[in-house]
């Protein structure tokens, strides 16, 4: 009886303040709260429901890109191609619908196929080609961007069916569709990472690839899968983007890979891999979004905003550098 009580107590104690403070989510959460409060003081509109929904909607694209990026970074890799893959995927989707007059569903599937295909390409080159991820995905970034411009002639492709806009600006109740999509994708990613063997292997490879390989983890296959996932989330982001812009924009998403990496790292994931939580990435993405939104609300010069964001990222990483 008393023995049981002790166990329960330990368990309850485990969910207390101490555990939260020791969780890798602690710092990102504290950062989120601090930045929110600062923004709340600076602008009275900040905490309104409509502004919060607005922030989350703005966050959704980077947030979705950052999901795939989290998987890749957890294995110790990096994916610089996500922004360009997103742009190409959206351009192809629009092109299928507009130029070729194919049914919308086929356009969407083609876009997803582009993302998945380029992700598989990245993964294959990294895992079987044994090339550094940073170089492979840098090359893919150029290739994807170039194909998008070639395919569209450099101009946005507009005239897509109006229902596609639901993905970008639609709402369910008061919640924007992109936010729902983002939450669903995060939930699926959480299940993959925390409840499947694949997820464990992702962490194992980032923690010690050689040990994982020698103990019989199919490291190449897992690496292929994480880059494929990153390509896939890039094309999900493309659907949201296409719906929002109602066109395929070959020039969209320049620099988004850096924002996605920033979200992952702000969320407490180690850039060398092995440690990190998908929930942290969500917090990191929202943190970035709040910064963008708040600095806008405060009317700060957009060029200055980049400087401030850069400094804040540096500060956050400095504080959290122990783990």
């Amino acid at each position, binding site marked *: 009886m008393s023995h049981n009580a002790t166990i329960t107590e330990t368990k309850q104690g485990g969910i207390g303040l101490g555990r939260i403070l020791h969780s890798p989510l602690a710092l990102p959460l504290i950062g989120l709260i601090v930045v929110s409060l600062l923004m709340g003081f600076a602008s009275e509109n900040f905490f309104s429901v409509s502004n919060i929904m607005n922030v989350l909607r703005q966050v959704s694209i980077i947030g979705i890109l950052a999901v795939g990026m989290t998987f890749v970074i957890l294995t110790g890799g990096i994916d610089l191609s996500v922004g360009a893959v997103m742009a190409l995927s959206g351009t192809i989707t629009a092109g299928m619908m507009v130029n070729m007059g194919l049914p919308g569903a086929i356009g969407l599937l083609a876009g997803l196929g582009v993302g998945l295909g380029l992700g598989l390409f990245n993964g294959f080159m990294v895992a079987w080609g044994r090339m550094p991820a940073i170089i492979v995905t840098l090359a893919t970034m150029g290739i994807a961007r170039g194909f998008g411009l070639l395919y569209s002639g450099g101009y946005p492709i507009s005239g897509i069916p109006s229902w596609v806009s639901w993905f970008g600006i639609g709402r369910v109740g008061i919640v924007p569709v992109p936010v729902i999509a983002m939450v669903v994708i995060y939930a699926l990613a959480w299940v993959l990472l925390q409840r499947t063997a694949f997820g464990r292997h992702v962490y*194992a490879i980032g923690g*010690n690839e050689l040990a994982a390989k*020698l103990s019989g983890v199919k490291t190449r296959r897992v690496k292929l899968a994480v880059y494929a996932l990153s390509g896939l989330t890039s094309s999900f982001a493309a659907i949201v983007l296409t719906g929002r812009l109602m066109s395929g924009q070959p020039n969209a998403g320049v620099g988004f890979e850096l924002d996605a990496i920033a979200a992952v790292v702000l969320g407490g994931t180690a850039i060398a891999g092995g440690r990190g939580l998908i929930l942290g990435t969500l917090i990191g993405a929202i943190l970035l979004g709040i910064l963008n939104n708040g600095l806008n609300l405060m009317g700060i010069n957009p060029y200055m905003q980049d400087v401030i964001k850069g400094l804040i990222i540096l500060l956050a990483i400095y504080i959290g550098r122990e783990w």
Partner: protein
Amino acid sequence: MLQLTGIKKSFGNIQVLHGVDLDVKAGEVHALLGENGAGKSTLMKILTGILQATSGRITIDGREHRFANYDEAIAAGIGIVFQEFSLIPYLTAVENMFLAREMRSGLGLLDRKAMQARAREIFARLEVDVPLDVPIARLSVAEQQFVEIAKALSLEARILVLDEPTATLTPTEVAHLFKVMRELRKQGVALVFISHHLEEIFEICDRITVLRDGEFVGSCMVSDTDTDRLVEMMVGRRIENSFPPKSGPRPDARVMLECEEIQLRKGGPVSGFELREGEILGFAGLVGSGRTETALAMLGAYPAARCKVLVDGEETRFKEPAEALAHGIGLLPESRKEQGLITSFPILQNISLNNYGKYRRRHWFIDLRKERACTEAAMEQVRVKAQGPLARIDTLSGGNQQKVVIARWLNHQMKVLIFDEPTRGIDVGAKAEIYQLMRDFTAQGCAIIMISSELPEVIGMSDRVCVFNSGGIAATVEGEAITSEEIMTHATTGRDRHVA
């Protein structure tokens, strides 16, 4: 010229050198001899200031020195050529020799001519011809070694340590190196030569000092000794009784794993071996003799030139260790931290790492409860001492870390386990437990390959022993023939000798 007296060294509370003496005269080649782990490297690190002795004296020409670091040792006239070269592959020989102490002209720019001239002078002294203008990476191993020697000489070294310089050289290159060494000896340089190849010692050295388990065994003139005496000095008479009794395979035991032919490098020796049910097959030999590479090659984790493996009589070629695992063959690597464990994972996930198939729920998901129950059972089986399955790996002792790796494999239905240095860095008590676990495993009809540099362990545990030498199996010994002398002789002398 150089005298080391009563050198002792401890790491924490483990003493690795118990009062070693070394006395090297000017103009002699002095061999430093001993098994792996006898303390040769530690002693040389103390001589070159990389480590500091706990007690003992270093004198050069009668003057006592205490080296706080490597630079002070160099300044005192000591040079060392490490087994792993410290050259920068993309720089030329001259650039490497004068790295960080480049000669400058009046303008503060590099004085390339002066450096070239100085380098030529030194190579002329060595009577070797090394291309000075091409990147080091394009030179042969022997030429790189000459550059290292020249570098030491350019620093006015009068005492030169060569740490296993011949390990990676061809016979012709060895002959050339010996010529250079003789030249240096004539010039009055004191040379310390570390090698495991006894023939080489008889060929080039004047005197010998032997270490064993960190103890000074003795010094003698080369002309006063012979191979058998040296082997006996290196091996000693040790009594070890911590090993559970050998049961040995049954006479009708079938062959579980056969390595028909394995060749690590093109042009290297081709060897083969069999592993029988219920057997512990020892892989003995010096570090770098190809034991680990052979094991890795079988599992598809090392690119061997040739490798033909039969599992239960059927030819199998593993592309990666995952495929070997599917056939019931697993490896416990020599370096647990770097190759065995995921240190960011707790015990639980380290054990279940490669076995999620065992506790799946609805095909895709991990059954966390079952995972935990299995882990606890596995931990119980090998008696891991820890706070619980969620304890961090780095809080465990070496022995318990090794047990976690063992538990990972016992969690499967394995047929063959390859233990690479199973008890390295593990205390005596845990050692005995690990030996018992190995015996229990073979008692179930499974088989073990045990790679080990600890001779007592090889002798105490193995039913048969494959002795590796220079990339291949030099001899396989069995039963009564498994003795230290027999193993060391095959491991250190020419490959042409056979078991009597």
